[in-house]
């Protein structure tokens, strides 16, 4: 049990109780020793001293579980030790039984907030059993015969003083218990508030995730439509026209060889254009260089094709999972396109990609016209970048101001998960 971590004050209160317990029993013992030394046989003094020494050792042994935060075990030891002393003293001085009953009840009262309900039942049953035992012992035994040898006024005074001290101690224990219970209540309330805040945060993250997922799906559909359109309007039209031109050329090859040759020349040229279009289209879907050689070779090629002055700095990057490489590559591409569109004709751009341990970070800085992030919000390009990174557990930060350029930082804390691809696959 580690209640001290939940209730930091409880351990300190428990130590105070052990000290008070020891002091009270110690004071009572000194008092009894004085009476014994005065009235009874010296041998009983040794017995009494041994009893108290045993108590001291037991109570001190309760400090070890206390230091570990195991208040329940500590409380159990203190309780048993106190009961043992109470029984022992009852044997010696049965006339002071009310004092020993109260002494025996103290640990139970103090242990109340620190032990489990199951253990508390044992404590209560033991206490009842202990009281009955004390009563029987007091009734049947008077080992020392002290009651008959000490003046009545002295025993009465001792009883009154001891009861007063114990009464005060019990009130103090109740006061401390109240404090501990209040601490526990505060802790529960605080935990409850933290839990509510966590639930709200979780709900907000779930909403953001759902929105992000919807945007990713929409972007994917849009991308599919774009590819279909590009294929239909580009390569497919060219190939169909080529087929028709070849048909015409074949038909005219005998009747009009010159015309047929001209058509075949056109077909050859158009074929080269169609091949280039298909290559560009495939490159836009997933660049072969990125698939085969990773960011280290794909990014320089992308920067070289950029429509504005751009520089690339890569440090400690290696191969990463395909989704991570695609996210970083297309974010950088988006950054290049954004800067080309919005940063202005004189802007230049620097991309820095840095690998560190398991993480990967990129920074896209342009010297363009910038924008006010509070007014403009995020354009679709920046939202796409954030969504791409979110899919691989990354985040995006944007810093820009009018006439102050733009700085985009993408961070993927765990970029090296699940690398399964063979990086040595040759270019196709």
């Amino acid at each position: 049990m580690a209640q001290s971590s939940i209730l930091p004050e409880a351990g300190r209160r428990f130590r105070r109780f052990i000290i008070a317990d020891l002091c009270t029993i110690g004071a009572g013992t000194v008092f009894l020793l004085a009476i014994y030394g005065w009235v009874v046989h010296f041998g009983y003094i040794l017995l009494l001293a041994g009893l108290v020494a045993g108590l001291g050792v037991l109570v001190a042994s309760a400090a070890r579980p206390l230091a570990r935060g195991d208040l329940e075990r500590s409380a159990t030891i203190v309780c048993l030790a106190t009961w043992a002393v109470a029984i022992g003293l009852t044997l010696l001085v049965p006339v002071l039984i009310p004092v020993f009953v109260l002494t025996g009840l103290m640990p139970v009262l103090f242990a109340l907030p620190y032990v489990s309900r199951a253990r508390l039942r044992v404590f209560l049953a033991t206490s009842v059993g202990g009281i009955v035992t004390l009563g029987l012992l007091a009734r049947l035994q008077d080992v020392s015969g002290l009651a008959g040898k000490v003046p009545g006024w002295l025993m009465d005074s001792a009883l009154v003083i001891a009861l007063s001290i114990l009464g005060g101690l019990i009130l103090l224990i109740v006061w401390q218990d109240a404090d501990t219970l209040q601490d526990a209540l505060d802790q529960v309330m605080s935990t409850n508030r933290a839990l509510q805040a966590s639930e709200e945060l979780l709900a907000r993250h779930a909403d953001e995730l759902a929105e992000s997922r919807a945007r990713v799906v929409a972007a994917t559909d849009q991308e599919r439509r774009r590819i279909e359109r590009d294929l239909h309007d580009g390569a497919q039209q060219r190939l169909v026209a080529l087929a028709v031109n070849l048909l015409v050329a074949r038909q005219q090859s005998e009747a009009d060889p010159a015309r047929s040759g001209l058509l075949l020349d056109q077909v050859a040229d158009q074929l080269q254009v169609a091949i280039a279009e298909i290559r560009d289209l495939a490159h836009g879907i997933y660049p072969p260089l990125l698939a085969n050689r990773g960011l280290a070779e794909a990014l320089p090629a992308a920067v070289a094709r950029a429509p504005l002055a751009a520089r690339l700095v890569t440090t400690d990057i290696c191969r990463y999972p395909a989704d991570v490489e695609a996210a970083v590559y297309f974010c950088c591409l988006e950054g290049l396109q954004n800067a080309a569109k919005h940063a202005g004709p004189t802007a230049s751009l620097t991309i820095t990609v840095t690998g560190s341990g398991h993480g990967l970070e990129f920074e896209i800085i342009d010297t363009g016209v910038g924008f006010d992030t509070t007014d403009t919000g995020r354009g679709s390009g920046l939202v796409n970048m954030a969504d791409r990174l979110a899919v691989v557990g990354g985040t995006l930060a944007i810093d820009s101001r009018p006439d102050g350029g733009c700085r985009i930082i993408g961070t993927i804390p765990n970029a090296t998960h699940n690398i399964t691809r063979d990086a040595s696959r040759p270019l196709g």
Partner: protein
Amino acid sequence: MMMMPDSAVPVVVVDDHAMFRKAAVALVAATEGFAVVGEADSGETAVELVGTDGPVLVLMDINMPGMGGIEAARRICRDRPGVVVVLVSTYDPADLPADAARCGASGYVHKEHLAPEVLRRVWEQRGPGGR
């Protein structure tokens, strides 16, 4: 309108993709008995281009910006019942829009299958002699 032999079937080629339009024009020119009398890169231009006299064969692309081939075919067929409009596209017949069958066009030819004999067959079946 371009000049053409008196006996040739006058053909208008409508397509927003210049490359295919040129190829189709070359095909028609190489087909005996047919002659290109006009080209258009949109449905709107095609509607204006189709003349008021004589039967005409129109090769009409379906997917074009603006009016589009189906709407252009519907207007031409409504205003000029004698004109034969053949829809052309790169889509499979199963993928064609439903209104392609209701626009008044005489038929559909996949661009890949456009050939002189197809032109002749369409004209024989759907032209003035075939109806």
